[in-house]
């Protein structure tokens, strides 16, 4: 810290305050232009690779999204001048690559316009970016969110339970995670994860003393009091409910992992992690014995190449085809539009990472994973440098949501863990997921803006 009583240093720090934000935004603008360039190049390469000709129409549609991203950048210059400069370009790049790959798969299937998924994905991306813009503009101070923590909890649980309602609930690929109103489907659980992260952050900031300081020590572990266990049990029941009734291992893992990490970060007590892991693993172990779909997933994971498992209904066919695709890509990939990703079922959503691995190679996957890692690191950075515990906790929670999603999806596709259906953030086809992840990006942008602001205020005072 520079001494605050000397005049030259004071003016110097003022100068920094004035100059740095525009520097940050200029960096963001540069990175954003790179991101848009990468996305446009990817779409052109897809067109050349599949059709051998460039279709300007699609480029214009994608260009509109680029303009939206630039609009967001302009908005940030006004309402969040100190926001992190990497988050928006990374989200834009990933979204653009995802659209290019979905478009590529549309072309391979001979789908165009509204028949295809790419156009819908672009529309959803536009909606998601507008909502994200709204979040940044509307929420000027994130601490407001802490006040609505219980509202967030009820909203979260209500969204979770929505697909169970008869009439609007919809079962796709064996999982009951969607609602359908008219011709319009949505996965409310995607939004629920944000609501629950807000609830956890708000609840834990207020309850952490009772959670961390009370309780008895047994075998070197300080166990929480029974009444403090209440919320974690509710979440456990909800996660298991999702697992059993909505038949979705990945989503329940996501909620549970999110809660365990946030409670650990806020209370600093390892016992919570052990209790949480124990509850989840216990539940998963029972589920793997009793629920046939979970059992099938385990068999497909451990014994993928066994012909019986491969040919079984719900067996490892998709997993193995994904592995074949990635091996087909090898180190440097086949090139966009040059592989055969459509052999693998769900190549545009659950398996988009395998499709990208096939056409962009290990090099491309490393770049994509690197982008996720950087995105997550920016979130954790807010956790380290933030000024209020609610914001820090929320940032870590949101960043960890991305970590868990990437790990569960990519780990499932590459046989690190059993395959479960989660969406690859920003990449996979699916509107709800795009909206949710852009909201996460917007919240992280908002939270990071505070980080930049606060220390200087302290210094300048």
């Amino acid at each position, binding site marked *: 810290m520079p001494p605050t009583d000397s005049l030259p240093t004071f003016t110097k720090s003022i100068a920094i305050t004035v100059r740095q934000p525009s520097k940050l935004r200029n960096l963001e603008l540069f990175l954003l232009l790179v991101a848009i360039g990468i996305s446009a190049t990817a779409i052109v390469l897809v067109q050349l690779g599949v059709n051998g000709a460039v279709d300007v129409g699609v480029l214009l549609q994608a260009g509109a999204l680029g303009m939206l991203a630039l609009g967001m950048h302009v908005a940030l210059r006004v309402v969040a001048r100190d926001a992190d400069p990497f988050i928006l370009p990374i989200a834009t790049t990933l979204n653009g690559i995802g659209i290019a790959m979905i478009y590529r798969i549309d072309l391979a299937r001979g789908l165009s316009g509204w028949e295809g998924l790419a156009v819908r994905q672009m529309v959803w991306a536009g909606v998601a970016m507008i909502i994200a813009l709204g979040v940044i503009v509307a929420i000027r101070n994130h601490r407001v969110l802490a006040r609505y923590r219980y509202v967030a909890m009820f909203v979260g649980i209500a969204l979770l339970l929505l697909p169970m309602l008869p009439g609007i609930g919809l079962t796709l690929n064996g999982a009951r995670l969607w609602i359908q109103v008219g011709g319009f489907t949505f996965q409310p659980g995607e939004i629920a994860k944000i609501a629950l992260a807000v609830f956890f952050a708000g609840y834990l900031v207020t309850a952490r003393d009772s959670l961390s300081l009370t309780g008895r020590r047994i075998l070197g572990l300080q166990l929480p009091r029974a009444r403090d266990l209440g919320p974690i049990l509710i979440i456990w029941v909800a996660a298991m409910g999702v697992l059993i009734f909505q038949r979705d291992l990945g989503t329940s893992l996501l909620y549970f992992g999110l809660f365990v*990490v946030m409670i*650990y*970060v*806020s209370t*600093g007590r390892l016992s919570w992690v052990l209790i949480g892991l124990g509850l989840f693993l216990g539940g998963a172990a029972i589920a793997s014995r009793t629920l046939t779909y979970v059992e099938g997933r385990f068999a497909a994971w451990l014994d993928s*190449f066994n012909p019986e498992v*491969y040919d079984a209904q719900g067996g490892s066919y998709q997993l*193995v085809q994904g*592995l*074949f*695709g*990635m*091996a*087909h*890509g*090898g*180190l*440097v990939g086949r*090139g966009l539009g040059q*592989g*055969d990703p459509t*052999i693998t079922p769900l190549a545009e959503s659950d398996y988009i990472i395998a499709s990208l*691995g096939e056409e962009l*190679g*290990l090099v491309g*996957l*490393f770049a994509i*994973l690197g982008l*996720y*890692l950087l995105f*997550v*690191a920016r979130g*954790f950075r807010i*956790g*380290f440098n933030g000024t209020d*515990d609610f914001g*820090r906790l929320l940032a*870590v929670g949101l*960043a*960890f949501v991305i*970590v868990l999603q*990437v*790990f569960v999806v*990519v*780990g499932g596709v*590459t*046989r*690190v863990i059993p395959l479960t259906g989660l969406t690859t953030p920003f990449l996979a086809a699916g509107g709800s997921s795009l909206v949710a992840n852009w909201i996460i990006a917007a919240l992280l942008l908002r939270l990071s803006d505070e980080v930049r602001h606060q220390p200087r205020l302290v210094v300048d005072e």
Partner: protein
Amino acid sequence: MNKELRRVSIVALSMFLALFVSTSVIQVFAVDDLRADGRNSRTLFESYSAERGPILVDGTPIAESVPVDTQYEFLRTYTQPELYAAITGYFTLNQGNTGIEGELNDFLSGTANEQFLDQLGALVTGQSPRGAAVELTVDPVVQQAAWDALGDQQGSVVAIEPATGRILAMVSKPAYDPNRLAAHDTQAVLAAYEELINNPDDPLVNRAIAGDLYFPGSVFKVLMAAAAIDSGEFEPESEFPNPPTLELPNSSSVISNSEGGACGGGETVTIATALRLSCNIPFAQLGLALGEDTIADYADAFGFGTRVEIPMRSTASTFPTGLDEAQLMLSSFGQYDVRVTPLQIAMISAAIANGGNLMQPTLVDRVIAPDLSIVQEDEPVLLSQPISRETASIMTQLMVDGVANGAASNATIEGVAVAGKTGTAENGGETPYTLWFTGFAPADDPQVAIAVVVEDGGGFGQTAFGNRVAAPIAKTVLEAVLNR
């Protein structure tokens, strides 16, 4: 809170590290296994979208990929389809590949590890990858001569260069047209395949190395005599009783010599005479004296029990085990349950011709990348040394005698010492005989070893011998080599 955050970020980093590792394992380290998996349709798709390398004989393509205006871009075309069908095999879109097309698919399609840098170069320059050319050891003149000489007979001819193992000709009849299976019209291909696979004459089977195998009959006596002499227990002049018929032990069956009567007259007969005149009874007695184990050991050393790869895997020829005396005696002149491929019989002659050294037979001379660099060049490989040089020299003399003064007279070539042995194998009951010839020439400097097999008695039922049908075919092929 920062301590916990640090720990959580380490956990998050570890999770990413796991993904970096798992993707690397799949896309770098396990690539070969994943690509080789039979269920990997991408490997197949890839193999026909690339310009597949040609198969060359003496520099001329016998199979090549011709550009066409369909989604598959190239059509595999065989210029002399039936002549080389047993060698090339066929290349289909998704029904599997056989022959050289199947065995060397990695090279032909350009996906072999040795061609990795080429693939990388093609990726960078944006060119479509191209497969390597495979140059065969086959001599087109000899191949044509063997094809013509076999005429309309069903059977096979295999000609090997004894010193190197290079296969100069390999014919299997009836043949088929691989162009029918390489077509892009899947329905037509399936129909053609159905027709060929249901054809009772099995045109898809390469009789030289596979199929139901043949009884060798008297050509097996070459191995028997070589084993007897090489074992040191017998000499060419070792004598056996010479009855006109012999009742098998513990059996009412009686065996006789093929010409009837005793073997060349006299109370006893030598191994040399028995081989020259191809008599069964002396060899039955010899087999009993040598014993099952000794014969089996020599058979193994000559290649029996091995799936020789040329590089197509041949079916292993078999010498039975656990024989009683009667079965051993029958086996000793190539009946009972001795079963062979023509390749195996040619290998026996080739080993004798090459001073007892059996060379690995092969069809592939070298693999040439599109930029004309040599990807792989096959050097002659010693497979085994079944018999000594001395035994080989004695056997050569005995076999020359068999052509000059014995049962294999129809292989005689004016001015050249031909070593040879005929065979006439019984297939039981009224079934026509299987007719054989094996040998090599010139005896003092062998250029070629050969096996000829003609099924179905050559059209003469049970009346013709190997010397009448198979020996003239062999003679034609030997002459084709000697006149090069």
